[in-house]
């Protein structure tokens, strides 16, 4: 539509400078660029190689040091919202544990945990370890209410709280449960969590009082809160998607036979990297606009 306002009015309107444009970018443009930053790397399979940091390597080394038949408890304390970060950690840990012939005990102190165990069974056990027997090599104890109270209770008496498995079958009927009384019988506890109750509670109510090694996997947001426990109370920590990708890299390096299915976090690091770059770019643009505006105001004051 043609602008029919007089030329005089148009010329009196202040012209927008670069600074004005930079300081008022429409948020829909930001949203669009974040979308492209995530979608394009997925479409074009942008994959980076990931190196394992010491805090993640510590978990891998601990798992490697345990003899076959060791008991490893994995707690699924997260909800579907954080599955992209947490599920690859849980799957990498369980894949490693089953590859090493450990006994894997799965449970949850979050009500949303058991469906994640089901997903893991489909993605890891049925696909890579079809020969592993339920009740002999791995078991799903399911969810129970009680938060840290539950952890405290099973530290003293696991079978008192878990009389049946997730399907309602008596716990004593399973071969791998016969010599388990409480958490002290576990060689390692791995909590994959994203809040309360989570890794902190496993350290405070199981690891410390029971002198049981505890490792964790948490969302990137939560990871800095748990650094004070590392390395004395928490032997290692996977922080966010990067932590999961680091564990997968260590796993694939040692067990290349699992490369096809064990690199989901590594594949997701491409979109995450580009999204981080987009955020950094916008922070820089915002600061250029801020300093440009400030120097313009100073010049105006002097004039």
């Amino acid at each position, binding site marked *: 539509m043609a602008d029919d306002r007089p030329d005089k009015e148009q010329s009196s309107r202040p012209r927008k400078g670069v600074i004005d444009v930079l300081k008022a970018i429409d948020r829909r443009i930001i949203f669009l660029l974040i979308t492209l930053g995530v979608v394009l790397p997925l479409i074009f399979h942008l994959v980076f190689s990931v190196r394992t940091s010491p805090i993640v390597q510590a978990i891998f080394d601990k798992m490697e040091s345990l003899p076959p038949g060791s008991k490893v408890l994995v707690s699924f304390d997260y909800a579907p919202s954080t599955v992209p970060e947490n599920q690859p950690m849980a799957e990498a840990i369980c894949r490693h544990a089953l590859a090493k012939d450990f006994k894997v005990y799965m449970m949850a102190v979050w009500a949303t945990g058991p469906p994640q165990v089901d997903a893991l069974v489909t993605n890891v056990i049925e696909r890579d370890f079809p020969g592993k027997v339920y009740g002999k090599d791995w078991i799903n104890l399911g969810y129970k209410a009680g938060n840290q*109270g539950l952890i405290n209770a099973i530290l003293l008496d696991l079978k008192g709280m878990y009389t049946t498995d997730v399907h309602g079958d008596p716990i004593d009927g399973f071969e791998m449960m016969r010599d388990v009384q409480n958490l002290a019988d576990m060689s390692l506890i791995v909590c994959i969590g994203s809040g309360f109750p989570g890794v902190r509670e496993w350290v405070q109510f199981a690891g410390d009082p029971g002198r049981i090694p505890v490792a964790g996997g948490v969302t990137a947001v939560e990871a800095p809160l748990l650094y004070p426990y590392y390395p004395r109370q928490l032997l290692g920590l996977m922080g966010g998607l990067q932590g999961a990708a680091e564990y997968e890299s260590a796993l694939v390096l040692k067990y290349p036979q699992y490369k096809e299915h064990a690199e989901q976090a590594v594949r997701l690091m491409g979109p995450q990297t580009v999204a981080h770059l987009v955020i*950094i770019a916008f922070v820089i643009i*915002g600061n250029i606009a801020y300093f440009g505006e400030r120097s313009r105001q100073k010049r105006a004051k002097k004039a």
Partner: protein
Amino acid sequence: MFFKVQIPLIITFIVGAALVIAMFVPHFPFYEANENFSIYFDLIAVFAFILGGGNLLKIHGDRIWRKGRDWKYSIVTVVGFLAMLIVGTLKIGGPPGFTGDVSASDSWFGFMYYSMFVPLQSTMFSLLAFFVASASYRAFRAKTKEATMLLVAAFIILIGRTPLGHYVTGWLPPQLQFLHIPNLSNWILSVPSMAGQRAIMIGIALGIISTSLKLILGIERSYLGGESK
């Protein structure tokens, strides 16, 4: 008055004192008391679901009845809650009975969980990325020295927590490895950030000890529905 105030105070004192002693004396009878109290706690925690559900229905039901602020959203909450509760409790579509498997392939609960709850939760969490980007652009400014330090630390963490960090500064000679971005990122998380976290944690722990002592000794009584002494 005796049953409403004195009895709960006596129970709180006995349970609190026994659990504190059990922490330091893991022998009979305190060890057993700790175990039993933990089981009682788990039993009580189950009843918290009933209280939570009842409270949710009361608050949102009241808002719908009064047509209070955003009452239409309360309808969605109540309908969603009741639908999941009924379908899950009655095991509609799946094996019948209270002990029926809610995750069975024909279960309506499984369908509602995987087809509604999971996508809704994932969507809500995914939106964070967009808002973080927009908020960072508008608010993350190097206005002061402290803000500048925060900004630099954020850049290092953002790059250091991706494989990009290794590519950007991977060429640095061994004597300058402390400037390698992943190393800087780890240093920020393990030293300054951790120092701050420890200070916060110690402060919280002291607060919890103080509040717990007040509860055990009956000084703090607001949980009984009255005022503190």
